[in-house]
């Protein structure tokens, strides 16, 4: 029964996506072209990687607000390690990703060791990591990376943007883990009832620690891709990206209370948001109007799913 309701939400969302795509392609000739769609895929990779990890985190009933700051910190460190410390660029990027992953691990440690609510812990680290990015960079940007580095963010492999391959691989691996492994099922169990999971002998703390670490890694990887895509590093990169990621996840049917959600849903939610953003801007709506619409979509989607849920259980 649970599976049926899941399928229903995602089917509904997929139909909505198709409808939006059709409407938008009538609005502008430039929307439904291969090059535009691939380019949109490029733009949504960073949010997508973060949203995949966020799906796991929210499915356990947690949240990670610090991802945008981890992204910014990683971006800054990539530049600083490369330019100031003189490391070769691959080592600099790897080092920055390691720091970002550790930042995620620190979130997990604070949440599991000290039982701080995830919302507050990551709100604090949101300020801390962004502050470190600002302090380290002193508001100076780093540019002039070697050409090969831009392959990651601006290049193509077999005619498809490089980072879209990464996103697709991440999505497939993540959905297999979440749906079919013992570890993935543990995520749902924690989200449904943490105390019961602990009494059933599941390693709740270890799982959560791993998830927040993975969330840090995803944000860090997104940070390096971001730098490669826009050719520069700035300390305010990724500000507010947590909102986009959470919107995609929640729109995709993951319950904010945990226990429910799929990667497929998140990916459809992500495409829906990106299609709306792009389609509206092609139709002449400014970016700010789009932000408004996404906020409204977020509230309405949860309102609708709450109403469905209530009528379903009775």
């Amino acid at each position, binding site marked *: 029964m649970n599976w049926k309701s899941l399928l229903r939400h995602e089917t509904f969302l997929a139909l909505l996506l198709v409808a939006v795509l059709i409407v938008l392609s009538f609005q502008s000739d430039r929307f439904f072209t291969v090059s535009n769609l691939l380019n949109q895929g490029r733009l949504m990779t960073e949010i997508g990687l973060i949203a995949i990890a966020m799906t796991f985190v929210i499915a356990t009933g947690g*949240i990670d607000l610090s991802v945008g700051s981890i992204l910014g910190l990683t971006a800054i460190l990539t530049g600083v390690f490369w330019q100031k410390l003189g490391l070769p660029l691959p080592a600099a990027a790897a080092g920055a990703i390691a720091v970002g992953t550790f930042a995620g691990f620190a979130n997990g440690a*604070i949440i599991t060791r*000290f*039982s*701080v*609510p995830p*919302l*507050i*812990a990551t*709100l*604090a*680290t*949101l*300020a*801390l*990591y*962004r*502050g*470190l990015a*600002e*302090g380290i*960079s*002193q*508001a100076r940007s780093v540019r002039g990376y070697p050409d090969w580095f831009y392959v990651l963010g601006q290049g193509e492999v077999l005619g498809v943007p490089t980072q879209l391959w990464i996103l697709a691989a991440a999505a497939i691996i993540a959905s297999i883990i979440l749906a079919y492994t013992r570890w993935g099922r543990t995520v749902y169990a924690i989200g449904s009832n943490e105390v019961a999971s602990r009494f059933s002998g599941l390693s709740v703390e270890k799982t959560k620690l791993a998830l927040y670490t993975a969330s840090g890694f995803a944000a860090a990887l997104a940070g390096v891709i971001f730098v490669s895509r826009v050719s520069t590093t700035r300390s305010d990169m990724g500000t507010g990206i947590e*909102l986009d990621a*959470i*919107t995609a996840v*929640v729109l995709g049917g993951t319950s*904010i*209370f945990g226990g429910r959600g799929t990667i497929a849903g998140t990916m459809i939610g992500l495409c829906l948001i990106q299609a709306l953003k792009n389609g509206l801007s092609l139709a002449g709506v*400014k970016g*700010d*109007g*789009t*932000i*408004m*619409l*996404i*906020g*409204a979509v*977020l*509230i309405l989607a*949860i*309102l609708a799913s*709450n109403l469905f849920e209530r009528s379903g259980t009775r």
Partner: protein
Amino acid sequence: MSAVVDLPPTRPASAAQRPGFLRRLFADYGQELVVLAAIIALFVVVTMVNPRFISANNLTTIFSGNAYIAVAAIGMTMVIVTGHIDVSVGALIGVLATISGTLAVAGYPVWIAWLAPVLVGMTINACIGALVAYARIPSIVVTLGALSIMRGGLISVTGGTWITNLPPDFLIAQKSVLGLPVPLVFMVVLTVLAALWMRYSAFGRSLYAIGGNAEAALATGIPVERRTVAVFVIHGAFAGLATILFATQLQVIQSTVPPNLELTVITAAVIGGVSILGGSGTVIGSTLATILFATIGSALIFVNVSAYWLRAVIGLLILATVLADMLRRRGRI
């Protein structure tokens, strides 16, 4: 039904054995005293490094320039005590400031320009509160959505232009009463009134009961849903009052959302001793915490540390406070 329930004090340790005054003070206001001590220590140290730190000019900047944050943090404290959160308050203040400034420039009487943000703030937050209480959407989701709606809406409508030519009568934050700057008076009076109200009124106590255990509060006859909406409405009123101070402190109003304002306000509430789990905390603490931030920000400049490190320092401070809060709780259990 109005619930007049005799609730136990928030920190029951003090009532049980009737220890001495100081011990009771520390049990009831431990976190607030820690923050106060930090402020005093900071003042002493920085003044020794650079005596100009306690010049009248700098003191005015520290206390009056940040009073609007303290006022907004009063409402935020009530929301968090009740067990909710509001990440949209920064965007709300941005919207309200633009409304207020536009009315003032359009030639409406200044009292209308001051009243409008309070009323609009209450109305907007009534909607947020209703979605939280009756539609049962978690407050973090509702306010994240409201944040984007208000931020996007504000920039689309104003295009980010500045409001200039504000009438001099309108600029209340630059005036003084009995030799004291108006923002300082606002901050102190509102903090004291809100603190008394939260500690001694039945309504105020019921907020702690709801935050402590909403189901138990419902069972004792507290109308939890109505109170939740009411708390958000009151929070909206404080956001409106904060807006008056914010909008009138300079000669211009930037029609954009002040960046990270919501985070500063939430942080002030949390550091001031509002438990992140709901159910305890006072507005005296949130006001003291606002002053502490302002002092740190100013101190960094006076001891020649780059202001770019400010947010890292504040982030570290929140983390330390939150961890201390959790450890203290664990010790008590």
